[in-house]
């Protein structure tokens, strides 16, 4: 198994005729993702890389049948509309790739998704990939590379950085440890599926036996993962790296932020909380595979 996506997931691509859309449609299809349709309003009737293009998500659904997931590549200013459209058509998983989506648009998408009991990953995400099954987004860049770099296996990856999602997954594969699903949760401060939400999914996935997490300073995601562990809602071994140790902490301008979060969000707070609940926090991301191997080895 895997989380979010497997080879059967029925996938739609919104913005399929754009600069990124075209290139990534090829990646997804070549990789083996079950891509059934694309949408670009006004471009219905065309084909991109053998994938039929429709004028709306609803139209696509009526023609090709239920859609499980939509990968969105439209310009940032149009993301909200595209996401709400997909949710309205009953799509339960969105992967929102674009960067620079206004925060209030993300909040509106979040509210609509919650109501529809749907999930979304991103914005500002490279997406996610379940090795040998499917890729949603642009992880790996080209199908051939993605197949070489990422091998199937028992380790889940959740990362705040796109590049590090691939990097950690590649290092794990190279070390002979395969991957269940790798997820780039997105680089923005508000994302649809943050680390703790991804951890809950990994917890339920029988194939995932350990998880590697790449965290960063800012937001409360990593602290909330620690909370989950404390509440026994996440019980699998977790190895984490937190980036941003050298960043200048600088003057805090927001009193409100300080009142609400205290020092949550800082490097010290994240590392401290994670260690407190028994997470293996490593000093260099390159150390992750060895730690995971140790943990899995000792359990085997």
């Amino acid at each position: 198994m895997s989380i979010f996506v497997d080879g059967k997931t029925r996938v739609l691509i919104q913005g399929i005729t754009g600069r990124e859309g075209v290139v990534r449609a090829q990646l997804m299809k070549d990789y083996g993702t079950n891509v059934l349709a694309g949408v670009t309003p006004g471009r219905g009737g065309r084909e991109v890389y053998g994938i039929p293009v429709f004028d709306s998500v609803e139209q696509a659904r009526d023609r090709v049948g239920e859609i499980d997931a939509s990968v969105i590549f439209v310009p940032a200013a149009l993301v909200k509309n595209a996401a709400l459209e997909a949710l309205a058509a009953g799509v339960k998983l969105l992967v929102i790739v674009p960067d620079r989506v206004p925060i209030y648009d993300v909040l509106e998408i979040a509210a609509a998704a919650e109501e529809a009991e749907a999930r979304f990953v991103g914005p500002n995400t490279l997406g996610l990939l379940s090795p040998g099954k499917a890729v949603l987004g642009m992880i790996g860049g080209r199908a051939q590379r993605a197949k070489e770099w990422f091998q199937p296996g028992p380790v889940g990856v959740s990362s705040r950085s796109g590049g590090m999602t691939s990097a950690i997954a590649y290092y794990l594969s190279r070390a002979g440890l395969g991957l269940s699903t790798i997820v780039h949760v997105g680089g923005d401060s508000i994302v649809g599926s943050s680390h703790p939400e991804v951890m809950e999914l990994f917890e339920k996935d029988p194939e995932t036996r350990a998880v590697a997490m790449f965290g960063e300073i800012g937001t409360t995601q990593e602290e909330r993962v620690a909370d989950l562990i404390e509440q026994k809602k996440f019980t699998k071994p977790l190895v984490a790296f937190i980036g941003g140790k050298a960043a200048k902490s600088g003057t805090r301008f927001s009193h409100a932020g300080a009142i609400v979060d205290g020092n949550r969000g800082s490097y010290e707070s994240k590392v401290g909380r994670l260690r407190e609940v028994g997470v293996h926090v490593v000093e260099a991301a390159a150390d992750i595979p060895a730690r995971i191997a140790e943990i899995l080895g000792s359990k085997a």
Partner: protein
Amino acid sequence: MARLYEFQSKALLRGGGVPVPEGAVASSPAEARAIAEKLGRPVVLKIQVWVTGRAGLGGIQFADTPAEAEEKAARLLGMKVKNFVVDKILVEEKLAVEFEYFAGIVMDDAAKRPLLVFSSVGGTGVEDIVRKHPDKVVRRTIDVRTGLREFEARNMVLRSGISGPALLQISDLLTKLASVARVYDARSVEVNPLVRTVDGRILAADCHLVVDDYAVYRHPDLGIEIAREFDRPPTELERVAYKAEEKDYRGTFYFLQMAEKAEEGRTLIGFHGAGGGGSMMSMDAVQSRGFTVANYCDTSGNPPASKVYRAAKVILSQPGIKGYFASGSGVASQEQYNSARGLVKAFAEENLAIPAVIRLGGNFEEEAIQILGTYLQDLPGRVEAFGRDDPPEACAARLADLVAEGGGISHEVRPMKEPLIQTSAYSFATLTGRISIDHSQCLHCESKGCISACAPRILKVDEDGRPVLAISEPEAKKGKCTECLACELYCRFHEKQAVTIELPIPGLKEYRDGIAGKS
């Protein structure tokens, strides 16, 4: 600068019906006097800078008469506070304050909603105050689809222990504050203090609003120059970098200056990252190797070679750097040869004399490493390329070795040279630049290698054996020419240097002239 000044924030509040003190902003003592005259009562003068604790710095002054206001304004204007020089002051009616409260809206990443915080105690040192009185602090998340409703605000204020006439005034103010935040896409708004005056008015006595960088385009009226959060005004070079990025949406280019000099015992270097997480990790790696980074830079999101080139030129406009470190995540999804070509063009133009370590792991890294290896052998500075199997820590160590071997020479920022282009040259515009081909050279060229170097296949050989566009000029300009720089590099290194690609960076010439003039 998506952070607004107090006077701007208050103007937005006033527009949204939130009561604020009467007053206006002044840039000269005479203006301050005129405002005080118009108000006709004692005033407060407040410097407009983004630092907390202005009162402690002497940045807040009181004046009973217009003459006194003028004199105090003369003292405040021009004052230096941290990285700011005060050029504006807010002149407002002086309030007779009875109570101070606090109100703020921030983004709650767990709830994925805006979070309103209200405290019935506020003022200077609010963080400590609320730590002592947690019972006075109330919070609730806001449903973005309904906004904050009046009764929700009222219940909240009640819970903080406030009743009587202030209750309704404050709850009304909070609902309006939430809608101002929404209308202006504020990532955060803070009113500290929110005050009650002795005559019973409730006013936002101070306010700071930060507009979401990504939504700045919706608010041209705010006149935000750089839609990025800085804790100081941007430097001249940051402005240049931002302008270069502004109109090119292919990938992103972010540039921030961090230090002009190395700290004691450390070495200053230019830093060029790719992708936030990888960049941060790489920066951690160089800093723990004894380097001080002069700047933070990130080119990512599959940028064209032209964008990476511009970033490198900006980084190399910082005098005194002793090394160039480029490194991202190590396993990038973007086509790395674009980054490689951008770096090659920039390094070759600069005739780079300092060592550079380039870690370009990821898609097509073999090609990228080969490009760097083949084209940059003859520079005075040593350039070494690494891939995904080389961790950033090892690359940082390598740069330290190279700097030591090379004797630690400093990069010299020279004035920009205009490229020599024959007026008769064949040329066409690209999305952000211009390509010129000196056809007189091409007649003797057998390889015609520029044609096959062009991956989008937009060049062809005409009847006379000269390379020309195979598509229309408007198509090339609209982006069919991807500015990959392959034609120029091929011709420069394998043939007759017939191709010149000009990629202007407005303002950089003047900036460099200024530096060259100083030294």
